[in-house]
Every structure is written in C-alpha cells, then in structure tokens.
C-alpha cells in the first residue's frame, strides 16, 4: 500500500557499513530513494556500487547501519528477524540471477514453496500454482524438474515462484544475467507485462543497458550513492 504521495518504497538516509576485521567498508552512504507504487525501476551501476546491498535492504535480507527503509508504510528496518521473515513471505517476491530453484522439486512444487508459508489449503495452493505458471507460460512444464528445463524456463519458474503469493514488491537481482539474448528478452517481456498489465512494482538490478531500457525508470549508483535518476 503506497503512502499519501503514492510511494510504495521510501529509503531515507541509509548508510550501510560492513566490517571486515578492523576495517569498515562503507557500501551505502546517506542514500535516499522513493519508488512509487506500480513503477518498474532498473538499478544500475558498476560492481561494488551498492546496488545489490540496496536490493537486500529492500528485501529485508539485511539491515541498514543508519537510516530507515519503509515499505507499504512499514519500517522494515525495525522488525525482528522472525517478523522480517514473515514480512518477506507476505510482501516480497524475489527473482535471482541463478534462479535458485530446488533441484529435487518439480516446477509446480518449486512455485508452491512460498505458499507453504501461508494458510492456504492444498487445493488452494494448487490453484495458485496453476495461475502463476500460466502467467509465465509454463503450465505444460509443471511436472518437469529444473534439470529438465532451459535457463529461460528455469527463470520463468523463478518468476512464477516470486509472484505466486501476489507480493507487493518484486525484487529481481540480475534476472537475465545468466541467460542468452533471446531468453533475456522473453524474461524482460514477462516482467514488463507483470508491471504494465498487473501493476506490479518491480525493482531490477542489472548490468545490461538493454534490460534497463525496459524499465520505466533507471537509477544509477556509484560508490554507494545515487548518481543519476531518470525515466527510461
């Protein structure tokens, strides 16, 4: 749920410092970012610029050293580890570069995983899985295991898993980074459709300019700060 100004995500004055031995590594410094509901934002920057760290903070996988992260009006940086896990399950869909599917589960069971964290019955879960797989065009491959699917298909299963709980926010960490151009285009088409047709708010970390052009807004980062912020 967006705030009064229509912002779903609000990052305010966020610092992130990692400690390695006696050395402090400042990855993010005083970062501020607002993301309206329904936006498709591409986060770009060189390696080490802090974009993945920012994505982790938005996903509630990490906490800022300073500052606040508010999503749907909730300060997620103040939630306990346990509540954060529950919050992630309800509000965030994650898409990984290397798909991160469970090799021993077929496509349908992989997509069903986040639904195990809900109160849905087995029948209801099955229906949700069918819908999610049909959205990504893989209903006919529901019984196939990851090793039996191409990279593009595995990523589509990953996306189905990310959207099956109808999350508030879809966070994609280089979703086309491991794919060839054709498969990348298919995945980007899918993400665009999810954004435009279903109004999903998507934040995508990418190195790929072509992928970033599919977003409605591109934010560049360097050395832990936003450098440019423009419509695609």
């Amino acid at each position, binding site marked *: 749920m967006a705030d009064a100004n229509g912002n779903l995500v609000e990052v305010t004055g966020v610092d992130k410092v990692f400690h390695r031995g006696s050395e402090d590594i400042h990855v993010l410094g005083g970062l501020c970012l607002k993301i309206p509901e329904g936006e498709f934002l591409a986060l770009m920057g060189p390696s080490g610029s802090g974009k993945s760290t920012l994505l*982790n903070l938005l996903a509630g996988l990490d906490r800022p050293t300073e500052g606040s992260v508010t999503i749907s009006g909730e300060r997620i940086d103040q939630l306990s580890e*346990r509540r954060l896990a529950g*919050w992630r*399950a309800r509000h965030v869909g994650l898409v990984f570069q290397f798909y991160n599917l469970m090799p021993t589960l077929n496509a349908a069971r992989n997509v069903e995983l986040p639904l195990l964290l809900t109160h849905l019955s087995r029948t209801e879960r099955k229906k949700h899985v069918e819908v999610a797989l049909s959205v990504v065009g893989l209903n006919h491959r529901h019984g196939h295991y990851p090793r039996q699917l191409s990279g593009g298909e595995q990523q589509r299963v990953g996306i189905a898993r990310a959207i099956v709980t109808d999350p508030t926010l879809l966070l994609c960490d280089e979703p086309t980074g491991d794919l060839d151009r054709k498969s990348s285009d298919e995945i980007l088409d899918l993400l665009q459709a999810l954004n435009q047709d279903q109004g999903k708010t998507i934040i995508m970390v990418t190195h790929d300019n072509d992928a970033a052009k599919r977003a409605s807004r591109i934010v560049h980062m360097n050395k832990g700060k936003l450098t440019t912020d423009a419509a695609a």
Partner: protein
Amino acid sequence: MVAAMNWLAQVIAVTSFGIRTLPERRGAAAAAAFGIAGVVAVMVSVLSIAHGVNQTMDKSVSSRNAMVLRSGSDTEMTSGFSNDTAKIVAEAPGIARNEFGPLASPELFVVIDLIKSSSNSDANVPLRGIAQAAYEVRENFQIVEGRKFEWGRNEVIVGSAASREFSGLDVGKSILVGSEPWNIVGVFSTGGGVAEGEIWTDASVLQPAFRRGNFYQSVIVRLNSEDSFTEFKDSLTADPRVNVKVIRESEYYAGQTAILTAVITGLGSLIAVIMGLGAVFGALNTMYATVSARTREIATLRALGFKTSPVLISILMESLLLALIGGTLGGALAYFAFDGFEAATLNWSSFSQIAFSFRVSGSLLIQGIAFAALIGILGGLFPAIRAARLPVATALREL
C-alpha cells in the same frame, strides 16, 4: 493451531528437501552412517554377552526352588557341610515331596580341567555330584542323547552346552576324574540355564574321588510353593543344630552373575562411548559438509520467508535419519552375526566356566538405535545452529 500447522508444513518441506538431496552427498552420508553402524554393532554385540549370561542365569531359576549353603558362604565353592546337616535340611517344612521322599538334592560342586573347543585352552568345567531328587528339582531336565548315569558307578552325563563348548565330551568317550576314567553315558538339557554347562554324576561316587568324605556343598530343594520359602527358611535359621544360609535360587544366580555382567556391561559401555565420540565427529563433519553444500538452498528458503527453526530442525532430522539408518544397520549386523552364538566364559564367582549364548534382544537393539540417535543429534546440532544462523544476504552473494 493454524500457525502450528503452518510451522509444521515448513519443517516437513525443508526436511524433505534435505533428505531428497542426500543421494548427491551419498559418499559422506554413507561414511557417517557406516561409522555409526560400526559403533552400534560393537556396542550391541558386547552387551549381548551380558544379556546372554543374564538370560542363561534366568533360565536356571525356578521360583519354587531354594538353595541352602553354609552360613557366610556366597557360592557353592566356598560352602560345605556334613551329611547330617543335609538330612536336617531335607526334613525341613515347606519342601515338596514325591513317593521317594522330600525333593531335596544334597550336591557336591567341584571343577575339572577340560579343553575349550573354541580356543583349545584349559578351562575349569563344573562337575556336580547330585542326589536322585536332582532330576525332580530341576523342572525341565531331560536326556537328549544316551541315558542317565547309573548310581554308584563312575559314569557322568554332560549338559548340552558343555558338550558343544568343551572337547571330548561326546557320549561313549570318557573323562579323567582324579586318575580314573569316567564314562560319558548321556547328554542332558534343562531348557537352557547354567546346568547345561555342567557335568553331572552321582554325589556319593564323587565324594571319595575328591576326598571330600561325607560332605556336601549345597542342598537344592523344591518347595511346595513359592510362598513356602519363608516357612522353610525360618525353620532352618531357627534350628540350633545347623548353621546354614537359605536363599532363593533366583537370588543366588543374580549374585553369581553380578560381577561378570557388571564388567561386561561396563566394558561394552566404555567401548561404545569411545567409539561413539569418534562417530559424533564423523557425523559433525558430514553435517557441516551438508550445510556447506546446501548453503544456496538454505539461503534461498530463508530469503523466501522460511524461519530459522524449520532449517535447524531439518538439519537435525537429516543427521538423525543417517544415524537411525546406521543404527539399524549396526543392530542388524550384530543380530545376524552374534544372536545365538554359543560361547563359554569364566564365572568369577565360581571360577568355573559358564556356557551361554549371545543374546541380541529387542530391548538391546532399541538401546543401540537410541544410542545412534544420540550420536546423530549431537553430530547434527552444531551444523544445524550454523545453518540457522547463516546470514542470508551474505550466503546469497557468495553463491
């Protein structure tokens, strides 16, 4: 309730992923399971000796039998009294009778040197001189080969376990008692028990052969009923003509095996604990490797919203499963290799050999599997904590 079901569903799901990926780690998993199997096999095998000895003693016992020894004696070896005392004992109230008189058998207990078949070494074998009532006092006595010895002659019958465990105890052969050869005329069974490891003969023939005069070492009596014991005991302890100790047969044999079973159980437990420690380290190594191999999977599940406790439990469950497989394997190995295996060992109370069978009982198998489970839990605990504490963001980045 819903939250609990939800949590349970997470535990089942995460655990099943781990178990399904076991074939990918089959080398390490098999090493851990076989290590635990070895521990359980050794533990169960050693404890089955104590179990077998105890069972042999239990089979020696009748609730209606009592033993009379000289006061202050704990074993037949240290006991001794005159024929007059034996006659007074036989006339005490509470003893069952048949047409020939009271069921009381005054007996002589000596040991002779024979060769143990399994080791070809010398062994002290009990040679018991009995009276006629002995056949009635021992409930399940029967001749399984040959015949009973004739009273007044240098003849013996041997217990079925003794005939298997010691060389030269076949029917038709003879053994040297003192300097005389005594003929073996039969093999007997008492339905198991210590007596089957003994050689029996006529007490009145044995006495002069061992220069014992008209002395006995025990009187074994069959009582009218289990409840007659108090009457029998009170009458003898109150009788100023005799100075004897009256105990139930069960009490006597429990005392006979106490040292032996304590030593075997202690030794078996010590070996199990030492080997178990090694197996814990093996399981630890395997489960740390498992956590390492499953880092991606665990981090992904945590990122999706799975809580730490299902992850922790899943690692413990996997470790427990390997341990249970190992425990079952070890138990089965011990059972098929040793259950019923016949052996003889020194009874430290009588300094004579006691023949027994290894007994891998159900309770011993459960004990072995429970020990395996403990190894599994200890081996899985720290890796499970490590998995639960895995920093998700770092783990995902390190892929």
